[in-house]
């Protein structure tokens, strides 16, 4: 059993001729929560998309559970145990709340999560399970998106900006639930714009700038100056 659940080595990513990531070295251990911060366009979302297979990567650039998964198609990577809560929630608009959750289990990975279990952590969704997904409030939609990812029974859960556009009280609740999820044996990577939030919930932080790792460390060991410098590059 390798000590790291996920590792990337010199991960590069391109959109056509445009290079978005320049050699990212990243690692996360089982049960760790790692936050990725950085300004708009620093490559955070691209990094997550590379891991999930939505953006192409070199085979040996990404190791999951000791196995090279770079370049595998996205639908196979989910089946191996990496699920993502995409930026902007991306619910399926013609599906009901419950159908959105159910489709999360499409890859048929075995594990602790079921509709009932998701309804236990987000009781509000049970009441609204017959509703069209788009009829829900932003916070509720985010719960559906998180629940949908959990239905895949991931070992590693990637959350892309789950606090975006939500009220502080909702954000607090979502993060409280994420805390409970990690106790179920799910390892967590969160991408956050809100640095304070990221620092509060994570064991380690990576700061990306212009497609490179500008800073890495435990929140307690990083000074405000270091972070500001890494974030803005000044």
């Amino acid at each position, binding site marked *: 059993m390798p000590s790291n659940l996920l590792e990337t080595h010199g991960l590069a990513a391109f959109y056509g001729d445009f290079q978005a990531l320049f050699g990212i070295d990243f690692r996360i251990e089982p049960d760790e929560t790692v936050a990725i911060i950085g300004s708009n366009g620093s490559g955070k979302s691209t990094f997550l998309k590379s891991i999930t297979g939505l953006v192409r990567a070199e085979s040996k650039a990404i190791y999951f559970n000791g196995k090279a998964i770079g370049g595998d198609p996205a639908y196979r990577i989910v089946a191996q145990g990496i699920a993502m809560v995409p930026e902007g929630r991306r619910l399926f608009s013609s599906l009901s709340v419950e159908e959105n959750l159910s*489709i999360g289990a499409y890859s048929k990975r075995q594990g602790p999560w079921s509709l009932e279990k998701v309804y236990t952590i987000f009781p509000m969704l049970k009441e609204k399970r017959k509703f069209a997904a788009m009829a829900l409030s932003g916070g509720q939609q985010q719960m559906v998106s998180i629940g949908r990812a959990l239905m895949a029974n991931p070992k590693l859960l990637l959350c892309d900006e789950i606090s975006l556009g939500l009220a502080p009280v909702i954000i607090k609740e979502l993060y409280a639930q994420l805390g409970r999820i990690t106790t179920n044996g799910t390892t967590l990577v969160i991408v956050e714009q809100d640095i304070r939030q990221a620092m509060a919930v994570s064991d380690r932080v990576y700061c990306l700038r212009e497609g490179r790792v500008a800073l890495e460390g435990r929140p307690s060991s990083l000074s405000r100056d270091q972070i500001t410098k890494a974030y803005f590059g000044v």
Partner: protein
Amino acid sequence: MDLVSTVLDGILLGGLYALFAAGLSLIFGVMRLVNIAHGDLIVLSAFVALVIVGGLNLHPLVALVLVVPLMALLGYGLQRLVFNRALGYDILPPLLVSFGLSVFLQNSLLQIFSGDSRRLHAGNLETWHFDLPGGIAVGVLPCLMFAVAVAVITGLQLLLYHTELGRAFRCVSDDQETAQLMGINNAHLFGLAMALSLSIVSVAGVFLGIRANFDPSIGPTRLIFAFEAIIIGGLGDLWGTLVGGVILGVAQTLGARINPGYQILAGHIAFLAILTLRPQGFFPKTR
């Protein structure tokens, strides 16, 4: 009473048009592909049935047992090997590919079967009818076509809204990128959708061949009927497509009653009138 009979004929003819349209609508819904070759694929399945009927001496409806799986297989292969390579953010390349396929199919059929009119002979089924009060005779074949259309649409609805495969079709239709994150292999799913579409096409093709003469050149007109049925009914609603087919069918039979030469024209005029008055169709579902 003559008028009632004409309208009834038109309604039942609408079933055939709904069969033409259902597969086209499914493909557009799942992958935003406007399949210009759809009509030619209908004609192709009529010819496939012709070969099987001739070779094995089967009744055309029995031949469906072979035609449907053959066309489904062709559909899956066509999608994986041809259409999937053209699909992307731009909707133009797949449109052009399907146009090319249309030309290819028409000319291949012409080469192999010549331009002669053909017919699938269904024996008594062609003439069987029953009498309604008031001296109205209703053919069994048109009734069968209509019933099959209703059955196909019911089946498609059940598939789309009550099975896991249908849910996956709707996901891919909503958001192809996120669908992959759910573990859905879009390329395979598109293949299944095309296989399903061509299964329906083969049923439509066999009925087409029993009902009237066909030759390699009539595909594009069937495509237009299918388009018209979909647009009249409203994009994305299969029952609407049936209604659209019925309106088109009734317009055609009424037109033909005035003058046999007006049949096709009357259908187009009805279509254009509805397009002008209600461009979104009767039961629009798309956002």
